[in-house]
C-alpha cells in the first residue's frame, strides 16, 4: 500500500514535471505572437513590478539593516568593521537580493497570477478567448511569463539599493562607522561582472521560473474554489523550493 502510494506520488511528480516542461515549450512558442499584445505585457509588468515595489522596498530596507547589525557584531570581533559596507553589499548582490526578491514576488505576484488564471479557467474565460480565435497562451500566459522575467531583476536592484541604504543607516548613522570607509571599501571591492551581473542573471532565471510555475499552476488548476486554492498554495511552495535549489546550482557554477 505504502509502496503504491509512494510510487503514485513519485509518478504524479514526474508527470507534472513533464507537463510543466511541455507547457514551457508552448508558452515560449507563443512569445513571438504575444508581442503584438504589448499593452497587456506593459500591464503585467506594472502589476508584477510596480505593484510589488512597496513590499520589496520595505523588506530590502529591513534585510539591509539587520544584515548590518549582525555583521557589525561579527566583524568587530576581528576588528574588521571597516569592511561592513563590502560585506553588506556582497551579501545582497550575490545572494539575498535575487533570492529574497524572488520569494517575495512568488508570494505577492505569483499567487495572484495563479488565482487570476485559475478563475479565468473556472469561468470559461480562457475557452471564450479561444472561441474568439484569440490564443490564450499568447494573450494570457506569455505576457505574464515575460513580465516576471522583466520585472524580477529590476525589483532585485531596488531591493539591493534599499538594503544598502538600510545597512548605511545602521552602520554609519546609528553605530557611527565612518561614511567614507563604508562607501570606499564597498566600491573598491564589489565587481560589476562577478558580483552585480551574476546577481542579475540569477534574478532573470528566478523571474522566469516563478512566473512559469505561477502561470502553469493557474492554467492547470481544477475549476473549483478548492482547486484554485490548492494551486495558489502550490505556486508558493514549488517556487520557494525551486528558487533555493536553482540558487545553489547557479552559485556553484558561478563561483
Amino acid at each position, binding site marked *: 500500500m505504502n509502496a503504491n502510494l509512494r510510487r503514485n506520488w513519485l509518478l504524479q511528480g514526474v508527470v507534472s514535471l513533464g507537463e510543466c516542461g511541455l507547457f514551457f515549450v508552448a508558452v515560449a512558442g507563443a512569445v513571438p505572437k504575444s508581442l503584438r499584445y504589448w499593452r497587456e505585457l506593459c500591464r503585467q509588468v506594472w502589476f508584477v513590478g510596480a505593484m510589488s515595489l512597496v513590499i520589496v522596498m520595505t523588506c530590502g530596507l529591513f534585510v539591509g539593516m539587520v544584515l548590518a547589525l549582525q555583521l557589525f557584531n561579527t566583524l568587530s570581533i576581528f576588528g574588521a568593521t571597516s569592511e561592513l559596507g563590502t560585506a553588506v553589499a556582497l551579501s545582497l548582490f550575490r545572494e539575498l537580493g535575487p533570492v529574497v526578491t524572488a520569494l517575495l514576488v512568488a508570494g505577492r505576484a505569483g499567487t495572484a497570477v495563479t488565482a487570476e488564471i485559475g478563475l*479565468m479557467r473556472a*469561468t*470559461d*474565460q480562457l*475557452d*471564450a*478567448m*479561444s*472561441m*474568439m*480565435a*484569440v*490564443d490564450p497562451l499568447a494573450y494570457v500566459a506569455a505576457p505574464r511569463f515575460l513580465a516576471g522575467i522583466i520585472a524580477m531583476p529590476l525589483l532585485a536592484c531596488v531591493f539591493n539599493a534599499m538594503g544598502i541604504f538600510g545597512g548605511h543607516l545602521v552602520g554609519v548613522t546609528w553605530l557611527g562607522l565612518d561614511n567614507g570607509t563604508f562607501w570606499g571599501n564597498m566600491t573598491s571591492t564589489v565587481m560589476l561582472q562577478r558580483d552585480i551581473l551574476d546577481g542579475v542573471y540569477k534574478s532573470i532565471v528566478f523571474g522566469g521560473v516563478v512566473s512559469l510555475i505561477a502561470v502553469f499552476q493557474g492554467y492547470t488548476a481544477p475549476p473549483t474554489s478548492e482547486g484554485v486554492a490548492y494551486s495558489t498554495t502550490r505556486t508558493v511552495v514549488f517556487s520557494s523550493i525551486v528558487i533555493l535549489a536553482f540558487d545553489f546550482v547557479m552559485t556553484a557554477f558561478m563561483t
Partner: protein
Amino acid sequence: MNPGVAQPESSAAALVQVRGLHTRIGAKTIFDGLDLDVPRGSVTAIMGPSGTGKTTLLRHLTGQLRPDTGSVRVDGEEVTKLSRRDLFALRERIGFLFQNSALLTDFSVFENIAFPLRQHAKLPEELLRDIVLTKLQAVGLRGAAQLMPSELSGGMARRVALARAIVFDPMLILYDEPFVGLDPIALNQVLRLIRTLNHTLGITSILVAHELAAIQKVADRVYLIANGKLVAQGAPDELARQDSPWTRQFFGGEADGPVPFHYPAPDYATELGFREAHR
C-alpha cells in the same frame, strides 16, 4: 419509428454534419456512433439527460475537443482535421454563448464586445464604437456599455455575451444552456433574441437546453441524444407526441424510465446486510 435507430435527415444544405462520432472521456463512453445534420438557417435544439455529452458535442463542433473517431463537418470543413490556424479562422465565423456567459471580468461591457474586433480587425475607433453600440442596441443594453461584468445580472450578462457572439455576424451560433438560471422575463428576452437573430440575420443556431416550453417556442427541430446515440428527432411538437420510452420519459418528465432513477449500485438488501452476497 424505432427511436433506437433514429437517423438524421440527410440534407445537402446541412451547415453542420456529424457522422459516426465516437468519444470516450476516461472510462466513460460519451458518443457511440452519433450522426446528425443541422440545416442552414434553422434553430436546432439538442436535448438529452444530464451528462449525456451535449456540451461535449458543441466542443467537437468548434474543435475544442477532438473525437476519437468520426467526422464533424462545419460549412464543408472537416473540423477534426483542421490545423490550428484554420480552426481559428473557422471560429471567427462561429459565435459561442457559454453557459456562464464567460465575460472577461477585467473589461467593461463595451470592451468585452470590442475585444474580438480589436484582435482581428484593424478598425478606426469610431467605426468600432458604432459596431459595438449596434450590437448592444440589438440586445437592448446600449445603456449598460460602461458597466463592468460584476455589475450585471445573470440575464444581462447572457445578453452581453450574445452581443459579443454576434459581433462578427457569424454563420452559426452555438448556445450552451442559454436559459439556465434566468427568471421568466430574462428567459423570454433571450428567447426573443435567439429567434430574432435567426429570422433577421439567417444565422443557423444550435441550442443545448432542457427547457421544453422554451424549445417548443424557438426550435425548428429537436435531436434527443441518450447513451451516446441519437434516440429521437423531429419538430418539437411532433417529438412531444411521439410514443417511445425515451420521448415519454423526457417530454413527460418521468423520474424513472430508460434513464434510471437510481445510479448503478450493488443490491440494496445485500448492502444493508439482509441477504448473503451471491458467491
